[in-house]
């Protein structure tokens, strides 16, 4: 092998998205090829393929005898989180105009088919004399999560990287977490979710993990915003952050003291200090991971009214 292919391979491995290969090979030698094996194709189809086995020996296999399997290699413990991280979000209310691109993007990427979106933009007005503003809410990923406390089966759990996630394979559907959440952020799959996937269903079942909520949603269990760890894994921002045309959402790492909305990357502490950042219902002691910047000098409120729909947060396809 020449240097070039080795490099490519190394890069490929370092990406964190290692491809595994399971193969059905005639003979006894390779009945148990597991994930983590690198492979490469040489030349056009029909020729032999080079593979590396557990001991590092290169062997040649006919591609006809192989079946490619996409195995996501999670390098961290799903219940413990990505080591060293403390995910944080800042929502700048001054920039929110109820464009709802965040919500649409979230609904799409989490295959939300119910009637209650995970990310909602509230029309807020404290009193008659104070001005109205738009307030996006998602799961606050509290450091003292009320939902986790009351869960009887540890289906919803708190990770070291700050995320509160749900194991939909364990949830018994008692809905106590929903009763406990003061932010009304949790939604329930009251019926069989009518989700559509581009991949075949077996594949989805194989891949589904608390790190990508809604893929697939499971009847009789609770769903909510997951802070998109599947994106973080790829080094990308959550869907709502990238979708927002106004840069409302800043996402980042509190340990690094950095957040970004995709356009600008700023110091978290400075952003909060300069803009008088606060958290929702601080007095409850839930210690949310989501901060808000007050709606000072904000974009005109009225323009958001066009998109406002009190009774709908998930667009439904027109039923003929």
């Amino acid at each position, binding site marked *: 092998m020449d240097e070039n292919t080795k490099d490519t391979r190394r890069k490929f491995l370092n990406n964190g998205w290692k491809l595994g290969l399971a193969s059905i090979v005639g003979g006894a030698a390779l009945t148990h090829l597991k994930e983590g094996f690198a492979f490469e194709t040489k030349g056009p189809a029909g020729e032999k393929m080079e593979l590396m086995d557990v001991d590092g020996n290169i062997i040649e296999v006919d591609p006809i005898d192989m079946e490619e399997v996409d195995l996501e290699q999670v390098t961290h413990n799903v219940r413990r989180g990505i080591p060293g991280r403390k995910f944080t979000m800042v929502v700048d209310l001054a920039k929110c105009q109820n464009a709802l691109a965040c919500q649409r993007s979230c609904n799409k990427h989490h295959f939300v088919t119910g*009637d*209650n*979106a995970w990310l*909602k*933009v*509230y*029309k*807020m007005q404290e009193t008659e004399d104070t001005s109205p503003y738009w307030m996006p*809410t998602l799961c606050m990923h509290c450091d003292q999560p*009320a939902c986790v*406390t*009351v*869960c*009887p*089966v*540890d*289906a919803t759990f708190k990770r070291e990287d700050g995320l509160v996630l749900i194991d939909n394979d*364990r*949830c*018994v*559907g*008692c*809905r*106590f977490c*929903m*009763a*406990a*959440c*003061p*932010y*009304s952020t*949790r*939604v*329930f*799959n*009251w*019926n*069989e979710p009518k989700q559509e996937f581009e991949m075949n269903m077996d594949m989805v079942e194989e891949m589904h993990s608390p790190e990508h909520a809604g893929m697939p949603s499971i*009847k*009789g*269990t609770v769903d909510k915003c997951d802070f998109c760890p599947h994106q973080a894994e790829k080094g990308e921002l959550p869907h709502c952050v990238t979708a927002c045309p106004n840069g409302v959402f800043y996402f980042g790492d509190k340990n690094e003291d950095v957040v970004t909305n995709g356009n600008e990357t700023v110091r978290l502490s400075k952003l909060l200090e300069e803009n008088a950042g606060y958290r929702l*219902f601080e007095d*409850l002691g*839930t210690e949310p991971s989501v901060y808000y910047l007050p709606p000072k000098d904000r974009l005109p409120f009225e323009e958001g009214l066009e998109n406002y*729909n*009190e*009774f*709908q*947060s998930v667009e439904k396809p027109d039923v003929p």
Partner: protein
Amino acid sequence: MSKYDQLIKDLGPRKFSLKGKLWVALLLAVIVAGIIAYVDQLIEGQVVTNMRDYVLWGVYISNFVFFVATSFVAAVVVAALRLTKNEWRRPFVRMAQIVALACIIMAGITIIIDMARPDRMMNLFIHARLQSPITWDVIIIPTFIVVSLLLLYFPLLGDLAILRDHYSETNKKLSKIYGFFAMKWRWSEQQIKLQGKSIRLLVLMIIPLGLILESIDAYLFSTTYRVGWNSTNFGPYFISGAMVSGLGALITVVYIVRKNKQLQNYITEYHFDKIGKLFNLTCLIYVYFNINEYLVPLFTAKKGESEHLETLLRGEFAIPFWIVTLAGLVFPAILLMFQRFRKPRPLYLIAIVVVLGAWWKRYLIVTPTLLHPYLPIQGVPENWHHYFPSVHEWLITGATLAMALLIITLLIRYVPVISIDRLAEEEAERLTSEKKAAA
């Protein structure tokens, strides 16, 4: 054993009359309808209910709370009155145990009905987490079922043996069944000693267990950040409410049984007067806790809380709230102070109203709070802003109530409603003491 004959005739098993058969048939019909609805709920999901993301608990939970509350009656009538040596409790004890057992069993079943994934029920044991109030419930409810069952069963042994002997000639099959459950009971000294010890222990256990049960039921609500639930008053509030609904249910059952079995000689006006006084006391205590829960907070209620109180006192839920509070609690508490309302029939009518009120009361504790989350309800269909149970929910809830009534009916059919063993013993004691006096 001729000394039992009259007692068995009066109190023992009696075949269902036509009315009784119709009653059982009605209950069975309601239960079958409920089971069909439940199977449909299992297939379709909880979507068949009218619960949604905001009103995430509905009539199932309030019905559950009602059952748990009513099952407290055993602790009050059987245990507390025994420990305070109130002899007038005797004719009520057996029926109180029956009502308590039926209710706690149905409470257990009702909470499973509310679970959207009953197929994963074992997770509650496999992955149990001790800080969740649901886990506390998982521990206390089966415990309470077992203790209630034993508290009914152990004192019953003598009666079962009497019936075993009674039917030994006339009905061999029935005699065998009673004999099986009588566990070779022969009134031996050792048996009686062991029985007495066991019952004393159970009686001592059921009071703290009952208090724990009712408190946990309250903590299911008060451990959440919810206006109207997050109240330190909730534990005693639920305990006092439990005494009211438990006694109400017991008085209702006792009156009906007394009328149908012609037990006027066994359960006299004196007994009704006594239990009416106890009922009155519990109602007054409950009034007190209602004042703490709804009136005192008016002075310092924060915005969310005052909005919640507003919907109860003047708004959406005002009509049911005031009917339940006035007709179901305050008026009974006042009326029961007068002796003539503690006569059997008026007391029975009051008790029925109180029980109905107690059922709706739980509904008013669960639902209105859920419609007042901290953040406004937005972005969901309009009908999610309100809640009224769906047909499925009514059918299933009706079936759980019918099942409780069926358990009570069948137990009353086959088991002496007042301990024959005990009555015969008392009679014997009376005779010997009379003899002594004469001598």
